[in-house]
C-alpha cells in the first residue's frame, strides 16, 4: 500500500496541534477573557498596568493563543434591536431648507413672476405659487439653477432637485438619485452616531450593522434590557436654542407664520411659541458634561464651537431681558431669560433633571443628534443568567453526547473506533479553533450544530470502516483493505458532505440571527469532519499498521 508522503503527514499533524492549541483557551473562558481585557486595557493606557491588570494578565500565559469564540447574545445575555430609520424625515428637512433660497432666487425675478408664496404641500415637497404665469419658464430656470449634481457614482450626472411646473405652482422635490444618496448618508450618519453613543456607555463588543436599505441592527452584550438600549439610541437628541415669542396654556394656539408651538417637557399644560429658525443648534456644540447648577440641581454644561459661540454671543448681547428656549426633540427643556451677554460660548442647561437624566443628556449631546427618527421593528432582551444556563446545558449535552458516541464507536469498531474517536476529538477542537480564529459568534443553535456534527462526523468513518470490512470479507490483505476502503468511500463522503455544505451555505446566505449562527458551525463542522475523518483517521491507521504490521485485522 502506498503510504502518505511525509510532508502530508507532517502537515496533518501541524493542523491537529494547531487546532488543539487554538481551541484550548475556550476551556478556560473566564481566565482568558480577563487576560485579554487586561492586556487590551494596558495597551490603551499606553503600557502601564494596574496591579489588578497584572494579576489578570498572569492568569493565562502570553505565549499561548488567546483568541476566544464570541458568545452570542443568547449565551451571554444582552439586548438586540432592529431599527428602521425614517429616511424620509430627512427629505423634509432638506426641502424645507431650500425654501429661503428659492424665495430669494424668485424675488430677483419679481418683474417677471410677480408675488411669490409658499403653498401647503405634503412633507418633502416644496410648492411655490407665483402670480404671473408668463414668468414660469424663467422661474423654473432660476429654481433649477439652485440644483447641483448628485455626488455619488451611480447618480452622477443627475441633479439633486426635481423641479416641475403645475399650473401656477412650482413643485420642488429631491430627485430619485438624490433621495438614494441622501438615504445612504442618513444611514451612515445614524450608524456613526449610534456607535458613538453605545461606545460612550462602554460595553463589550457591540454589533452595529447596516441591514438592507434603511435598517440598523444593534446588539449590545451585557446591557440590562432592550428598553435601556432604546433610551440610549432611540432619542434623536436634536438640540436647538430658539427665540421665544410667547408662552401660552392653549394647546391649540395659533403660532403664526414660521413659528412653532411646542410643549414644555416638565410643566403640564404649558406651551411655548418659538421662532422656527434656531439661533444655534446642537451641531455647533463641542462638549457637554453632566454638572450641577448653583442650587445644586443636576444640570448639563456645554460649550459651543467658534461659530456657535459667536452666534450665541451676538444673540444674547442683542436680546438681554428676553427669554429663549432650549429645545430637545421638539420639547422645551427650559426657557430662561437672558440676564446678560454670554460671550464665552459656554453655558448650562437646567431643568427638572435627575442625575441619570443629566448624564444621559450629556452623552447624547456629545455623540450628536441622529439625522432621523427610528422605528424599532424587533427587540430582544436575554438575561445573563438565562445565557449562563444555556451554556451549561449546551456544555453538558456536548460532553454526554461525546462520551456516548465514543463508547458506541468503540463497541462497534474496537481499535478502529478508538482511532475514529481521536479524529472526532480533533474535529471538535478544530471547529472551536476556527470559530475563535475567525471571531465567529457562537449561539445556542450553534452549540446544537456542533453536537450534531459530532454525530454526523463519524458518518465518514463509518462509511470507510464498513468498506474496509467488505474488502476484508472479500479476502483482501489488511493494507489493501484499508487502502481500498478509504479510496472507495471517498466519493460517497464527498457527495454527502457537499450537499450538507450546500444547505449550510444557503442558511448562511438567507438566514439571520440564530439560523446564521447554526449555519456557520454546521458548515465549519462539515469541512473539519471531512478533514479529520479522511486524513487524520487515515494517518492514525497507517501509523498503526506500520508499527504493528498485523497479518490480519478486525474492524
Amino acid at each position, binding site marked *: 500500500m502506498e503510504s502518505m508522503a511525509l510532508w502530508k503527514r507532517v502537515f496533518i499533524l501541524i493542523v491537529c496541534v494547531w487546532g488543539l492549541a487554538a481551541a484550548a483557551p475556550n476551556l478556560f473562558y473566564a481566565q482568558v477573557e480577563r487576560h485579554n481585557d487586561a492586556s487590551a486595557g494596558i495597551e490603551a493606557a499606553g503600557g502601564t498596568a494596574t496591579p489588578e491588570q497584572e494579576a489578570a494578565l498572569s492568569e493565562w500565559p502570553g505565549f499561548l493563543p488567546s483568541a476566544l469564540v464570541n458568545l452570542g447574545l443568547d449565551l451571554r445575555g444582552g439586548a438586540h434591536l432592529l431599527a428602521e430609520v425614517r429616511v424620509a424625515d430627512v427629505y423634509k428637512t432638506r426641502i424645507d431648507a431650500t425654501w429661503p433660497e428659492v424665495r430669494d432666487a424668485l424675488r430677483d425675478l419679481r418683474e417677471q413672476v410677480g408675488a411669490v408664496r409658499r403653498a401647503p404641500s405634503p412633507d418633502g415637497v416644496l410648492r411655490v405659487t407665483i402670480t404671473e404665469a408668463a414668468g414660469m419658464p424663467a422661474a423654473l430656470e432660476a429654481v433649477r439653477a439652485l440644483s447641483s449634481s448628485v455626488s455619488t457614482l451611480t447618480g452622477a450626472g443627475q441633479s439633486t432637485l426635481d423641479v416641475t411646473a403645475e399650473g401656477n405652482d412650482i413643485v420642488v422635490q429631491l430627485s430619485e438619485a438624490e433621495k438614494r444618496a441622501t438615504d445612504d448618508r442618513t444611514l451612515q450618519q445614524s450608524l456613526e452616531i449610534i456607535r458613538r453613543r453605545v461606545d460612550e456607555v462602554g460595553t463589550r463588543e457591540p454589533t452595529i450593522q447596516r441591514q438592507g436599505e434603511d435598517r440598523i441592527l444593534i446588539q449590545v452584550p451585557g446591557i440590562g434590557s432592550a428598553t435601556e438600549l432604546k433610551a440610549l439610541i432611540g432619542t434623536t437628541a436634536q438640540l436647538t436654542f430658539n427665540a421665544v415669542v410667547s408662552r401660552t396654556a392653549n394647546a391649540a394656539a395659533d403660532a403664526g407664520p414660521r413659528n412653532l408651538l411646542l410643549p414644555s417637557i416638565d410643566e403640564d399644560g404649558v406651551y411655548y411659541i418659538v421662532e422656527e429658525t434656531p439661533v444655534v443648534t446642537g451641531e455647533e456644540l463641542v462638549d457637554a458634561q453632566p454638572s450641577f447648577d448653583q442650587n445644586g440641581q443636576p444640570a448639563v454644561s456645554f460649550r459651543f464651537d467658534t461659530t456657535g459661540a459667536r452666534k450665541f454671543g451676538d444673540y444674547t448681547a442683542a436680546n438681554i431681558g428676553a427669554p429663549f428656549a432650549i429645545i430637545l426633540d421638539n420639547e422645551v427643556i427650559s426657557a430662561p431669560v437672558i440676564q446678560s451677554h454670554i460671550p464665552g460660548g459656554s453655558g448650562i442647561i437646567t431643568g427638572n433633571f435627575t442625575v441619570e437624566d443629566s448624564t444621559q443628556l450629556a452623552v447624547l449631546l456629545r455623540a450628536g443628534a441622529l439625522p432621523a427618527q427610528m422605528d424599532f421593528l424587533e427587540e430582544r432582551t436575554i438575561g445573563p443568567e438565562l445565557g449562563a444556563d444555556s451554556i451549561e446545558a449546551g456544555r453538558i449535552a456536548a460532553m454526554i453526547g461525546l462520551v456516548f458516541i465514543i463508547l458506541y464507536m468503540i463497541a*462497534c469498531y474496537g481499535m478502529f473506533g478508538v482511532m475514529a474517536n481521536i479524529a472526532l476529538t480533533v474535529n471538535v477542537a478544530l471547529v472551536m479553533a476556527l470559530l475563535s480564529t475567525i471571531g465567529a459568534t457562537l449561539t445556542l*443553535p450553534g452549540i*446544537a450544530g456542533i453536537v450534531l456534527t459530532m454525530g*454526523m462526523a463519524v458518518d465518514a468513518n463509518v462509511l470507510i470502516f464498513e468498506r474496509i470490512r467488505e474488502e476484508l470479507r472479500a479476502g483482501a490483505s489488511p493494507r489493501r483493505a484499508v487502502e481500498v476502503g478509504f479510496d472507495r468511500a471517498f466519493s*460517497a463522503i464527498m*457527495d454527502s458532505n457537499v450537499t450538507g455544505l450546500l*444547505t449550510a451555505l444557503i442558511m448562511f446566505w438567507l*438566514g439571520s440571527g440564530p439560523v446564521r449562527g447554526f449555519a456557520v458551525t454546521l458548515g465549519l463542522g462539515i469541512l473539519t469532519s471531512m478533514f479529520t475523518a479522511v486524513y487524520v483517521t487515515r494517518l492514525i491507521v497507517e501509523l498503526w499498521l506500520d508499527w504493528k504490521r498485523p497479518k490480519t485485522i478486525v474492524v
Partner: protein
Amino acid sequence: MAWRLRLVPEQTNIDFFRIQWVTFGASIVAMIASLVLVFTVGLNFGIDFQGGTTIRTESNSAVDVAAYREALGTLDLGDVSISEVFDPSFAEDQHVSMIRISAREGEESVTPQLILEVEQALQVVDPSITFPAVESVGPKVSAELVTSALLAVLAGTLGILFYVWVRFEWQFAVGTVAALIHDVLVTVGIFALFQIRFDLTIVAALLTILGYSVNDTVVIFDRLRENLAKYKQMPLREMMNLTANETLSRTIMTASTTLISLIVLLVFGGDVIRGFVFAMLLGVILGTYSTLYMAKNIVLMLGVDRGDKPKAPGKSEFANVEA
C-alpha cells in the same frame, strides 16, 4: 474474532420493495395528512413569524397560570397566552413560564411602557418573579422572516436537486427531492398536529433535515451507481435491494450516532432549543425511512436509462482528489 456490537447482521437480504405499496402509500397518506393539518389546524407560529412579544418569567415559587392571567386581565393586552415550562435541567425551586402577547394591529413592536406594566402586574402576584428574556418582533419583520424562511427551504431544495442531477442522473434527483419533500412536510405536519411552537430555529432544523436526508440518500445512490457499472445484467429492482442491503449497516450506524447526539440534546440541552432538537430528531428518523422506502422507489418507477453508461465516479470532478 473480537466482539463487536452489531445492529445489523453481516449479510442481510431484505426485500425493501416487498411491501412497497404499503410503505409508499403510508408516506403519501402522511404527506396529505400533513398538508391538511397545516391548512386546517395550522401551525403554532412563534413571534418570529407572527409578530408579538414573549416574556419568560422565572420564580422560586410555583407558577400559577390562573393568577398570572388574572393579573394581566386588567391590562388591555389583547390575545395573551401563558404556559408553564418544565425541564429536567431546572433546579428544584426554579419555576419558569412563557407569556406571549400577540402583536397589535398597526403597531411595530410592543411599547416599553406596556412591558413594564406587565412586569409590574406580575410582580404583585409573585414578588420573587424575574424576567430573564423579553423578545418582541414587529409584524413587518415577521412577514419578511416568513418569506425568507420559505425562500431558504426552497433554495435548499433546488440546490440539492441541481447538485444530485449533475452528479447522478435526473431520476436520482427527482427521487432525492421527493424524499426531501416527504421528510420536511411530515415534520411540519407533526408540528401542526401537536401544536409545537414553530419559529425561526425550526426552519434551521428543517434545512438541516434537508442536508441530513440528502446525505443519507446520496450514499445509497453512490453505491447504486457503482453497482450499475459492476452488474450490467442485474434487474434494477434486485440491484437496488442489493445496494440497500450492502449499505444498511452504515445507514443504521449513522442514524444511531446522530440520534444519540440528538437525544442527549433533547434531554440535557435545555428547554430553549427543545423544539429545534425535536424537529431534527423527527427529520433523522424520517430521513432514514425515506432513504430506504421512498427515494429508491421513485427511481425504480422512473427507471434508469442503462443504455448510457452511468456517470462513473472516476469521471467526476472529484476523481483527481487524492486521499
